[in-house]
């Protein structure tokens, strides 16, 4: 069953077509990697799927709802209820501790539950750093907190834009292991990456070039 479908989506900035008539679909529970050179429109696509931006043309169906037509208030609700976001930069609220950063996401979703937040930090191996402020955490650790925050509300879809781009090997492996676990639990994952190793962890890779889908690669070795 298809969770996400982009139909002839374009994003146009003046002369520039950041996305040029892109059509893709992603099934429920699928793990997809997006690759492509810098400036090929990967982030633009992620922002549109993540309800942070609207396409200039085309339709974006998420769970059967065309999000390209929704009001921005409704988009906030959809994002909050269905999507977990992870970025290359470590976006933490700098005056909140690790566990508080996770709980903020809970608060705006449903109810803050510290125990659950601590468990999520446990999944990224940071339970004992829960009371630390971002300034007391390494970059890799901050990114893992962001991953914990993204999964705390059990989103259907996790969008990660170069999540391992700034991570060392050890942290990268922790994050990839977690993605594999989330995949097993049935979460749909879309991961933008430059790193072939990260792409190989996914079931399918979509390659963008100049705002268009250049090709798709099915990972025959997935799960082996």
């Amino acid at each position, binding site marked *: 069953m298809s969770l996400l479908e982009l139909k002839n989506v374009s994003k146009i900035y003046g002369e520039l077509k950041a996305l040029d008539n892109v059509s893709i679909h992603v099934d429920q529970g699928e793990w997809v990697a997006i690759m492509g050179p810098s400036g090929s429109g990967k982030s633009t696509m992620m922002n549109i799927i993540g309800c942070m931006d609207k396409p200039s043309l085309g339709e974006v169906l998420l769970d059967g709802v065309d999000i390209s037509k929704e009001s921005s208030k409704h988009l906030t609700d959809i994002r909050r209820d269905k999507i977990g*976001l992870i970025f290359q*930069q470590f*976006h933490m609220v700098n005056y909140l501790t690790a566990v*508080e950063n996770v*709980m903020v996401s809970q*608060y*705006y*979703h449903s109810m803050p539950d510290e125990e659950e937040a601590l468990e999520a930090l446990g999944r990224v191996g940071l339970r004992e750093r829960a009371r630390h402020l971002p300034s007391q955490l390494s970059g890799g650790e901050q990114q893992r907190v962001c991953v914990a925050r993204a999964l705390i509300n059990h989103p259907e879809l996790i969008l990660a834009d170069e999540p391992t781009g700034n991570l060392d090997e050890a942290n990268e492996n922790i994050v990839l292991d977690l993605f594999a676990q989330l995949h097993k639990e049935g979460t749909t994952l879309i991961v933008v990456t430059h790193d072939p190793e990260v792409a190989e962890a996914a079931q399918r890779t979509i390659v963008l070039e100049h705002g268009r889908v250049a090709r798709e690669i099915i990972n025959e070795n997935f799960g082996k």
Partner: protein
Amino acid sequence: MNAFSLAIKNLIRKPGRTAALTLLTAFLALSVFGGSLVVSSLQRGLHSLESRLGADIIVLPASAQSKVSFEKLLLQGTTGAFYMDASALDAVREVEGVEIAAPQTFLASLKADCCAVKVQVIGMDQETDFVVQPWIAQSYSRSLGDMDVAVGCKVEADVGETLRIYDENCHVVARLAPTGTGLDTAVYCNMDTMNHLLAAAEQKGVSHKITSDSEETISAVYVKVKDGYDIDQVNSKLNGHVRKATAVRTRSMLTQVSDSLAGVSRTVSLLIAAVWVLALIILLIAFAMMAAERRREFAVLRLVGTSRRGLCRLVLTESALCSLAGGLIGIGAAAAVVFPFTTLIETQLGLPYLTPDARTMLLLGALALGVTVLVGALASAWAALRLSRTDPGATLREGA
């Protein structure tokens, strides 16, 4: 974890910013509270002067001169002598709504051999007087005997001394409490003494007679209006009924005082307004700086599902907490500045000055606090609105 605790955490973990905002709002509250305290003290001073005059209405001889002369006597301490027939008193008493009518007779002493000092001598009727005697009672427990005088605080004569007026010896039995007005330069006696002095003055060629055959003359009638009667109405009835006399509302005589009071009030108001504008501008800048600094944080909050309204609420809560704390500090500081320096302020302004009662001060404090929080909220609302409008995706895309 909710919007409130989020605000608290931000305030606590950004102590520098919190302190700056608090200080700024404290300054605002200080100026508003301090300024309004001074103004209301002056207003109370004016009211106390009104009650020192005591009467609702004062009836004076009809001549244009007498009112001006009376006001100068009151405010500048110059001497004045104007007279009307004593029958005016009976006419005043006939008017409906008049509760008490107390006559006074004025005599100006001379700067000559016959008199020790040039002063205004005011004779009052001890039976009916409700203005001078309560004042005398503050410093002298008995009533004035014949040839006794009570002197204003600025008259150069001590208790026990003799004051020579038209070659008559008067005994100074009391010095009166200061009022800050022309009344401080006058000398007070009873009606018998006054009649005696008038006769003595007559002999020296200083006549107070209106016509050669008039028996008794008076200078002013202090009128107290009965409860339930409109003072203005009684005033106009008096003007209609009492011949050759003008009834004037006491309040309108205090125009000079209230004018300079208005001047001071205006200055203080301008000062407060200037501080306001300044504080508002600084607050706007502070919040704009904060907005720039926190764009990423707000984008993150938006991305984890905070609505625009949620962000506005966060910023407003933070600013409300800051300005509430700042307001309380500022009001405390204003109290610490104004109260110990009351006397200095009083002499500097040269106007009657009386600190208001506790209830009024609480009210003023609450008002200042409300104004401070309001200004804080206004300044931050602008920043909050701007912040909540920024596109979270774009912000995070550009920010590394």
